[in-house]
């Protein structure tokens, strides 16, 4: 309590410091949510473990065909057995997780950048620009993207990991663009944007240095959830045989061996570990994403 000098009235102490930033709220909520925090730790462990081990592992050694060790069940030498080429499943699992995660991160980042750019410009300017962009986005959101990605993957000559991620990016940025656009549309009606405009700040500066930071928490949430989705899409495409080539295993490649009914029925060690790993990865990323989502919504916060 303080006493006002002139009137002598008591003024209650109010914290006049800055209100907590969006980022620190997200972090606080995440640590409070035990399931999400556990998932986050688990993810860090997996990422560190996979990227760490893959440095000392030799990819060409793992994918080398060994005709004397076809379809070995799990043993001390082959922790998770071998596949039809006598290749170690455990090694492939590590490399595959690394590849799947890497492409997941890459595509999420690229779609994020394009989506944020298009969404911000579209929402901030509105009018004709917005109309044209959004009709495009509507169109692509309706299309069966998976099919078109597969078709383009077959059409592109000199197919590589780079072209694969670019094709995925080309058809997956629309969701985030639409979200950012609707948020930017709300944001630009707020007083701070109007004030800034009146002061003569350039549109570019308002968009990227004033509006964008205010959308950061939503962007973090969407990108987290997208990461899970993109890993799912990549492994799905690899499963169908349109993702990574077999020489660069992904989690989907390992599961695709289960399209052979005998492997599915009798050799669980080939496809089950990769399946469980994808599922647990996606569940953990979703847990983190959902917790972050709750944190951005003040009504659902835990405190």
């Amino acid at each position, binding site marked *: 309590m303080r006493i006002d000098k002139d009137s002598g009235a008591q003024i209650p102490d109010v914290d006049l410091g800055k209100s907590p930033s969006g980022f620190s709220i997200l972090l606080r909520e995440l640590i409070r949510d035990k399931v999400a925090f556990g998932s986050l730790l688990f993810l860090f462990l997996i990422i560190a473990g996979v990227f760490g081990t893959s440095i000392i592992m030799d990819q060409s050694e793992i994918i080398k065909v060994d005709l004397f060790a076809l379809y070995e069940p799990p043993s001390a030498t082959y922790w998770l057995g071998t596949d039809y080429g006598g290749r170690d499943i455990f090694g492939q699992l590590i490399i595959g997780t690394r590849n799947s995660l890497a492409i997941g991160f890459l595509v999420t980042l690229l779609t994020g950048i394009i989506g944020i750019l298009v969404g911000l410009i579209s929402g901030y300017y509105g009018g004709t620009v917005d109309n044209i962009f959004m009709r495009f986005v509507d169109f692509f959101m309706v299309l*069966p993207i*998976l099919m078109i990605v597969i078709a383009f993957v077959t059409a592109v000559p000199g197919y590589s990991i780079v072209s694969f991620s670019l094709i995925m990016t080309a058809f997956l940025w629309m969701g985030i663009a639409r979200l950012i656009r609707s948020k930017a549309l709300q944001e630009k009606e707020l007083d701070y944007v109007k004030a800034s405009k009146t002061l003569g700040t350039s549109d570019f500066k308002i968009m990227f240095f004033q509006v964008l930071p205010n959308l950061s928490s939503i962007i973090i949430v969407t990108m987290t959830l997208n990461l899970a989705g993109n890993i799912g899409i990549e492994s*799905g495409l690899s499963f*169908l045989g349109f993702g990574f080539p077999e020489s660069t295993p992904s989690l989907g490649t390992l599961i695709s061996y289960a399209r052979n009914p005998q492997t599915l*029925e009798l050799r669980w060690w080939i496809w089950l570990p990769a*399946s469980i790993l994808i*599922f647990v990865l996606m*569940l953990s990323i979703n847990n983190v994403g959902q917790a972050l989502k709750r944190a951005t919504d003040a009504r659902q916060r835990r405190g």
Partner: protein
Amino acid sequence: MWKLILRRTLITIPQIILLSVLVFILAQAMPGDALTGLIDPNIDPATIEAMRERLGLNNPWYVQYIDWIKGVLQGDFGQSFRFKMPVSELIGERMINTLWLSLATLILTYLIAIPLGIISGRFNDTWLDRAITGYTYIGFAAPLFIFALVMLFVFGFQLGWFPTSGSVTPGTEPGTFAYFLSKLNHLLLPALSMALITTVSTVQYLRSEIIDTKQKDFIVTARAKGNSETRVYNRHILRNSLLPIAAFFGYEITGLIGGTIFIENIFGYPGMGELFLSSISLRDYSVMTALVLLFGLAAIIGALLSDIILSLVDPRIRIK
């Protein structure tokens, strides 16, 4: 009302044109052209050139595009050079199978979503609701193809309750009741696998919709008038929450298409998705592009239907 429907229908025209351009680019980008598979290597190059000229393959791209559109409008998608038959006939056979699969999936999706959503929304925060929410959480994270593989592994191979591939037992006479039963039996596991995953978003939507509605003033009024709880739910809450869901089936089509590609592949079910994948591995590109076009059209029309139905059942949309 009619204005809105008309305007929404008009939007599909540029969408369809854009789709056709996309598919045309795709067809052009594919290695080889319509002649690559037809001719034997002994024909002399001058003859091939003459055939090219006659088929219009040397025309500028916009002439080729218009020719192609003319053909498509008359149902002519070209020849499949693997199966040596018109693409339209080839697709026709598979389309019926995929239609049955999609229909069964849609029915199962709603059969699962509606009771689960209602229970979860009505008794929220009970153990039952937590179990259902847990299921939606898991279903949301699990990729369809992994779930389908596990279903096939458990119910197809380990328990042996369902056939593990095909759409009908070979040798069954078409038209008989046994034929129908066999079809249904082959359909059930793929459809159920897909429905259990696709239904998740509908359950979540219905749950939050019901929880939202039941706190509204008009529900309080309905209760205050002395309506029984059943009547409040059937007449007031569900009327509000179920109708939009019924309109979602059109949006589901896009998801179903992606789903059928995986499901038909895993369960060896001879439908359009399976044809799509095999036409790629056989380099039968005229079949592939025709399928992309048809699936794209189905998705666009599905979204159109959903938008129209939604505007019919939900007056709030009409005001715009």
